[in-house]
């Protein structure tokens, strides 16, 4: 109750007239009312203002997470040809349906999609509001933009080099690496609890085969669904690895999956898809590409 | 309205009337009073959180349970009526607040799919009037003895209840 005094309802019209008179005198003397003369002056917009989209073609990996997360279905992936990048898929946006919620920029795993402060988007033709990837392309925007999301160093495992030596698990100061057996195979692999990881990099230094490398990943706040391999169904065709935009899948021969041939001899080990979940962006393209339904992804429709 | 002042006093008296055990918190007291008044129809009384309790009531005793809640236990504010379309039943959920003991009770009543009828409580709480109309409009729950059970949000001539799960636009 310190700053607050209940006003006494007094005065006929003189009190309000004093206030408006002050205002009149102020605007007449200063000659400048509070209004912003819009087309000539504009408001200062903060950097996080959500206006028109821009896309950095070089950073974008074409995963389509922005399309997945869009509440209004106003984004789509489009095939474009670029002289440098070749045949690629990049998102376009229909500003006529966009809510400007900013989820697409927030979910982008490589921070390639931004929203600018440009808000003058009105047009006479609705078709002009449908912006393809080339319309929103701006490869240099990211340099002027301070991304709020932090980059983070996480250890990424190359399973083909791993020898199950457990050196990394012993070195981790946070005790966040545990050796877990891979199902249906004879192998084990280190599993990282990334929530506890503080990016010391001790595990990568300790690895004798250099199978662990520290890679920079942007923090993600969206719980995207993760792929899960059904080993019996996997044929080893590698379609998922070819489709993966973030190179999080590679094919590897798995010891322990050999079929027992006649006479007790063992055949060649099968190739199986291996997921690097640290790199996975959860776009679900492997799930869509798999013809054998070997990849489970809850919540992603085919 | 003399009824209002009367209700204020009876609410307090009602809580005092129930013989309180030492250390019994108000949530349990309300649940016990409700279960004692309607031993056969009120079930599943639980405390969800401090200040929030839940009970299920059969739809045959819904009206009298609500009367008891308002008149004897001091729940004088009907916060919300929501209808949920489950696969096998409709659930009509009443959230009722007490301004005196600062409690919220979640009273759940069910109705079968083929007969979505419950008693109206709009004579108990005037605020239920439009909320019941809304439930009727969007979910198709029929409230018995409602003063004016008409569509409220949708036009008068639509034939469907859009919040039902079998509704396909």
């Amino acid at each position: 109750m310190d700053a607050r005094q209940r006003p006494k309802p007094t005065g006929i019209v003189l009190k309000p007239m004093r206030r408006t008179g002050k205002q009149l005198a102020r605007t007449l003397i200063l000659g400048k009312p509070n209004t912003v003369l819009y087309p000539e002056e504009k408001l200062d917009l903060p950097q996080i203002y959500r206006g028109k989209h821009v896309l950095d073609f070089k950073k974008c990996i074409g995963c389509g997470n922005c399309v997945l997360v869009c509440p209004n279905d106003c984004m789509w992936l489009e095939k474009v040809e670029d002289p440098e990048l070749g045949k690629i898929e990049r998102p376009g946006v229909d500003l006529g349906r966009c809510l400007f919620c900013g989820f697409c920029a927030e979910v982008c795993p490589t921070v390639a999609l931004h929203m600018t402060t440009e808000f003058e988007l009105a047009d006479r033709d609705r078709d002009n509001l449908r912006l393809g990837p080339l319309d929103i392309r701006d490869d240099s925007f990211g340099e002027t933009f301070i991304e709020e999301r932090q980059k983070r160093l996480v250890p990424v495992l190359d399973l083909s080099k791993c020898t199950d030596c457990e050196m990394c698990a012993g070195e981790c100061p946070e005790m966040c690496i545990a050796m877990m057996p891979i199902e249906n195979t004879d192998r084990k692999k280190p599993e990282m609890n990334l929530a506890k990881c503080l990016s010391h990099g001790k595990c990568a230094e300790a690895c004798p085969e250099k199978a662990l490398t520290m890679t920079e990943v942007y923090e993600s706040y969206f719980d995207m669904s993760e792929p899960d391999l059904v080993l019996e169904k996997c044929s080893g065709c590698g379609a998922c690895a070819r489709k993966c935009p973030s190179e999080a899948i590679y094919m590897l021969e798995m010891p322990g999956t050999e079929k027992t041939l006649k006479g007790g001899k063992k055949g060649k080990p099968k190739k199986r898809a291996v997921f690097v979940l640290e790199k996975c962006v959860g776009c679900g393209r492997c799930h869509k590409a798999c013809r054998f339904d070997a990849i489970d992804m809850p919540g992603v429709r085919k | 309205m003399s009824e209002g002042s009367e209700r204020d006093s009876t609410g307090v008296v009602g809580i005092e009337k129930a013989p309180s055990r030492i250390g019994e918190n108000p949530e349990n007291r309300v649940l016990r009073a409700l279960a004692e008044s309607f031993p056969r129809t009120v079930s599943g009384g639980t405390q969800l959180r401090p200040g929030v309790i839940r009970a299920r009531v059969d739809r045959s005793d819904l009206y009298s349970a609500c009367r008891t809640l308002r008149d004897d236990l001091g729940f004088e504010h009907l916060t919300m009526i929501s209808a949920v379309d489950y696969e096998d039943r409709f659930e009509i959920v009443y959230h009722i607040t007490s301004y005196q003991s600062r409690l919220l009770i979640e009273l759940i009543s069910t109705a079968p799919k083929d007969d979505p009828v419950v008693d109206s409580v709009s004579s108990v709480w005037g605020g239920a009037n439009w909320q019941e109309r809304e439930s009727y409009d969007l979910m198709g729950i029929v409230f018995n003895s409602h003063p004016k059970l008409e569509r409220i949000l949708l036009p008068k001539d639509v034939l469907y209840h859009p919040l039902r799960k079998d509704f396909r636009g």
Partner: protein
Amino acid sequence: MNLFEFCHGIIHWLVDLVNNLWYWLGDFLPWYFGDLFTAIGDFAASEGHLLFMTVLVESVVIIVVALINVLNFLWIFRKLSGRILDFYGPYYVGYRIGGWLQNLADGVKLFTKEIITPTKADRLGFLLAPVIFVGSSVTILAVIPLSANFGLSTTSEPGEYVSAGALFALAAFSIAPFAILLAGWSSNNKYTLIGGMRSAAQMMSYEIPLLLAAASVFLLAGSFNFVDIVDAQHDMWFFIPLFIGFVVFLICLIAEVEIIPFDLPEAEAELVEGWTTEYGGMRFGLFYMTTAVRSYAGGALATAFFLGGWQGPWFVPDEIWFLIKAYIVYTVFMWLTWSVPRVRIDQMLVFGWRRLLPLAVLNLLIAAALKSGGWL
């Protein structure tokens, strides 16, 4: 030289010029043409025709000046509203003269709009209402002089103007409610009907204090003539002895010109646009313009009655003094308008009958006492 002499001189000169032309032309033509021309020339040079033409030209000059005044008024209204309400007001149209041309642009826009008459409206009344409203309001301007030399006079004698000009102005001022009632009723719309009814009640109850306050001025001045009234204020402006009357007069004027504390007939929050709801296009534009005309007339009446008319130091012409005072009265109106909300109709009527009427009567008594005591 006053306006009459000025116009008379011009007309005289023109008639002489044309007559010379006629006579010169008649010399070259057969005799009957010459006689005809002579007759026409004699008629043109006759005193009655000269007087008629003079008054006609005088009226046109006065109306043109008044309408330019109205544009000024609307500009001041919009600019001042803008400054009080913390925005710019008219800005781009006529950028160098502070957006003065905005009203002309709005007028042109309103001219291009379709004029709609509702199907079930009473067509005659619907058509007649703007005519009466605009006509009666513009008529007020005819008798309000800007100075002792700038007004509608019947003779060349300065000071002899329409002898009951003030009375005529007040009478013309109070015709408008009939037009409003007619407009409200003939539009066949509930909002306009309520607006019209409110207007009738409002005008009726505020007319009486207005006239009583004006009557005290007439009593002190001893005349209904504007020039006499202003001359009577040579020693002391009337708002000092008749301060109560001045305040009552201003309040009643606010009610008469329907601006915000008393704009109940067109209270846009509850009655959409009141009695003008069904009018569109230039008909609405006329109403809008006429509101400014009435505001100007009100300011001018207050100036002439209480603020010493065109009296002021010599370095500014009399006409400018008069306009400045009228504008200041209007500015105070605007200032009050934007500072207070709108009252309710019953409160307003109670205020009119129970507060203003006794005050006006008291003021009249004071004036009578002053006059009979010989102090003024």
